């Protein structure tokens, strides 16, 4: 008897049929992976199951009984929990407070915190979800916050856990942890729906795989019956190159030069502790590191969002150390921010308005302070076509685009500007394999056109397949440099987690020296 069953779910938005008679079922103790291109309708389907959206037609059954789910509250009562990619936690509250929020034990409006903490601890021990019940959410890492979300769902009695792209913001170590947790949940008889674009994850964790395209289910398979290549083909409908081939780089003059830069973070602690490097035209330089080792502050200082406390940053011959974001854009720097919702997009703006953000003062978007809606719409349509952004029109609010298509808007805007230097932080976060292939090709094309690319990514695969040169950042310093073919994932991981110690001269003299890590570094 399926635990959760969706029958013939149909959901239309203006101009889009997001779900077209989609059916799926979820057995007890099963992990179903939902796979599909950006905009295929995965999030919509799960939002229907969780009561965030109401289907136009179709039926939802829980334990073989037809149910109506009109709000998340009802979904929770039926044992359905969902963890969104953007967490919905209250930052200043503690873990326990967040978990019991809305379901506080106690009477007469007085919360029994002892009981609450006790129950949180029980659940967290039972499923191996270790977390400090008294920590404040804002002090936790992303991975930990996600764990709190999962705990919250379990506390509320979830039997079905829906995870919408849970790994997009996690480091590889955190992904491994998450998988372990999900498996232990399933062993306890729970079930999970797992949305992801990372095919190796699908193969690793799913019992069954459902592939969606254009709002409909186009196939079902199991990890035993297919591999990543086969999955990619099912999703996109063609063969996808998972690792792009690129020619050798021809290093021209230095485009970006960073010299002994120190940068403070929001709490005025030194996050970047004297970094020097340069990127030349025709080169992709990747900065690899575990999240929170100073790469965010480094990027912000280069693109004019944060002033370095000392050091200099030069673009070609221009000193941009003290440039603001506008000056930086005008000097020829493009920036794909790591968080599209926070820095990349104005969600309330439509797609066309977002496409010109940063270029909104200059032709074709505007002249002498007057905007040109026709020219803007035309530009937007061109970007939509070039970057395969799936949307009914250029006037759709960014808010209403699927996650991956939002990312494509940011990428299209920043690469479309044709900058001298492209600073790309997590450029393919949330993109499907086809779109990743496309964006990678674009980045390589920029490089081949003699532009400089600075790539910051937590995805080792991405770093390895794109970079001509890799710098490993650890605790605000460059601890290692790899030149193209010298690197492999394990060696990289070793240095990223501090294996090389935090001392490494950043004067560039000994950059070619490659130390051999103790284990399994080279095959």
């Amino acid at each position, binding site marked *: 008897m399926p635990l959760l069953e969706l029958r013939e779910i149909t959901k239309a938005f203006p*101009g*889009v*049929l997001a779900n077209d008679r989609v059916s799926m079922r979820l057995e007890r103790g099963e992990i179903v992976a939902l796979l599909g291109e950006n905009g295929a309708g995965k*999030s919509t389907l799960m939002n229907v199951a969780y009561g*965030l959206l109401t289907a136009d037609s179709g039926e939802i059954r829980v334990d073989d009984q037809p149910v109506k789910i009109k709000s998340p509250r009802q979904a929770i009562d039926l044992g359905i929990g969902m963890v969104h990619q953007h967490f*919905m936690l209250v930052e200043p509250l503690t873990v326990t407070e967040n978990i019991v929020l809305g379901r506080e034990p106690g009477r007469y409006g007085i919360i029994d915190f002892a009981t609450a903490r006790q129950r949180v601890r029980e659940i967290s021990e039972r499923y191996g979800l270790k977390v400090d019940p008294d920590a404040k959410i804002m002090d936790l890492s992303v991975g930990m916050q996600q764990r709190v979300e999962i705990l919250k769902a379990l506390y509320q009695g979830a039997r079905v856990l829906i995870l919408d792209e849970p790994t997009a913001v996690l480091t590889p170590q955190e992904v491994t942890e998450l998988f372990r947790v999900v498996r232990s949940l399933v062993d306890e008889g729970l079930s999970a729906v797992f949305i992801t674009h990372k095919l190796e994850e699908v193969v690793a964790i799913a019992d069954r795989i459902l592939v969606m395209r254009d709002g409909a289910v186009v196939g079902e398979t199991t990890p035993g019956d297919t591999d990543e290549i086969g999955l990619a083909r099912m999703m996109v409908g063609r063969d996808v190159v998972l690792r792009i081939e690129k020619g050798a780089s021809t290093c021209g003059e230095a485009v970006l030069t960073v010299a002994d830069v120190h940068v403070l973070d929001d709490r005025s602690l030194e996050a970047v502790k004297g970094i020097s490097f340069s990127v030349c035209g025709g080169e992709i330089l990747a900065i690899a590191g575990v999240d929170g080792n100073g790469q965010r502050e480094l990027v912000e200082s280069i693109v004019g969002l944060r002033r370095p406390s000392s050091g200099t940053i030069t673009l070609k011959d221009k000193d941009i150390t003290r440039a603001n*974001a506008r000056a930086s854009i005008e000097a020829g720097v493009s920036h794909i921010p790591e968080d599209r919702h*926070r820095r990349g997009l*104005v969600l309330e*703006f439509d797609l066309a308005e977002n496409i010109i953000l940063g270029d909104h003062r200059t032709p074709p978007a505007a002249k002498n302070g007057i905007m040109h809606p026709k020219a803007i719409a035309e530009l937007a349509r061109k970007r939509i076509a070039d970057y395969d952004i799936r949307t009914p029109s250029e006037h759709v609010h960014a808010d209403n685009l699927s996650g991956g298509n939002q990312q494509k808007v940011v990428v299209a805007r920043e690469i479309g500007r044709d900058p001298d230097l492209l600073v790309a932080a997590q450029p393919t976060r949330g993109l499907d394999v086809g779109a990743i292939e496309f964006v990678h090709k674009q980045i390589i094309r920029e490089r081949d056109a003699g532009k400089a690319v600075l790539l910051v990514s937590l995805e080792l695969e991405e770093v390895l397949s794109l970079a001509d040169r890799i710098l490993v950042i650890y605790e605000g310093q460059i601890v290692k440099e790899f030149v193209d073919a010298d690197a492999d994932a394990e060696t990289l991981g070793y240095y990223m987690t501090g294996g090389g110690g935090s001392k490494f001269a950043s004067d560039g003299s000994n950059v070619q020296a490659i130390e051999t890590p103790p284990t399994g570094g080279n095959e």
Partner: protein
Amino acid sequence: MSAAEERPAAPRDWASIAQKVGTPIASVVLAILIGSLIMWISGYDPVAAFAALYQGAFGTPKAFGDTLLKSTPLILAGLGLAYGFRANLFNIGAEGQLFMGGLAAAWLGLMLAGQPWFVSLPLLILAAMLAGAAWAFIPAILKARIGAHEVITTMMFTYIARYLVSWLVVGPLKSPGQIPQTGLLPVESQLPRIQSLFSEATLQAMPFLKLGRAHTGIFVALIAAVIVWLVLKYTTLGYENRAVGYNPFAAETGGISVQWTTVKALCISGALAGLAGAVEVMGVHHRLFDQFSSGFGFTGIAVALLAKNHPIAVVPAALLFGALSAGGGTMQLMADVPQKIILIVQALVIFFVAAEGIITYFIKQRQKEVTSHAG
């Protein structure tokens, strides 16, 4: 390719427009219904009361003229508030800027005695806008530089402005006589009444033009509404204003200076409020005294809220509040309902607009789609 492209793109989807317009209208209807209930419980006849109110606001050309008269400063103040709200700024002190605008217009009007109207009218209007902007400038700088909240600072500046005007009209600017007020503005500095633009014969032939005290300031207000709308929609200034209001981090990343945009927004908001003060002085009282505004700057907040900060929608929203205030007197007279009841209705409108969630709930019995896109 994708299913989306085969379907005709929804041009501007009507459902969402209907919802945008529907919420404020529902708020007003609910406010009137609950206001009626309160009247009924208090022993008054709500039907008679609202009939009288309607009569007093729209029943005759003269009554409609009064509604226009009251609406004029409300449109301008509402525009100022709306422009600020679009940058996520709450210019709660519009009343102070309005006072400074009125002061500037009155003072300059008296100075410019003897000048022809085509010199003095534009100069007065310009001066009032500059005065309003200047009064907002210091709170704006404080906000941009040290993050002082504009709700506190603009409010404090309102007190300063009001006391300044009170002092000036008993002191330096006082005209001879008992009453604390300035002298009368020269005719060239007054905004003429609408009916004075037409000959007696025309008014006889078209009696609907006998709009009583309504003055040409309403055209200033309407033009301002169109200009603000155009600015927000078609200029980089408006684009940056909206971007900062929606998402300052993305705006900053896109090279927009959040601080500078804040300063500009608050000053423009102040300029519009100053203009509201000017039309009130130039069109209604023709002089300055310390009670010349009956809280238009504050009612402007409600107007902007009801209009959902859309400059064109500010016009009907201001008309509604203008009508409530113009018709209130007639209601008291004819239906014997205390005028204060009108304040309750106004408060209810504000309450329901602000509590949009409740209205949305009433309109459709389903949860608002708060889907933040995961992934």
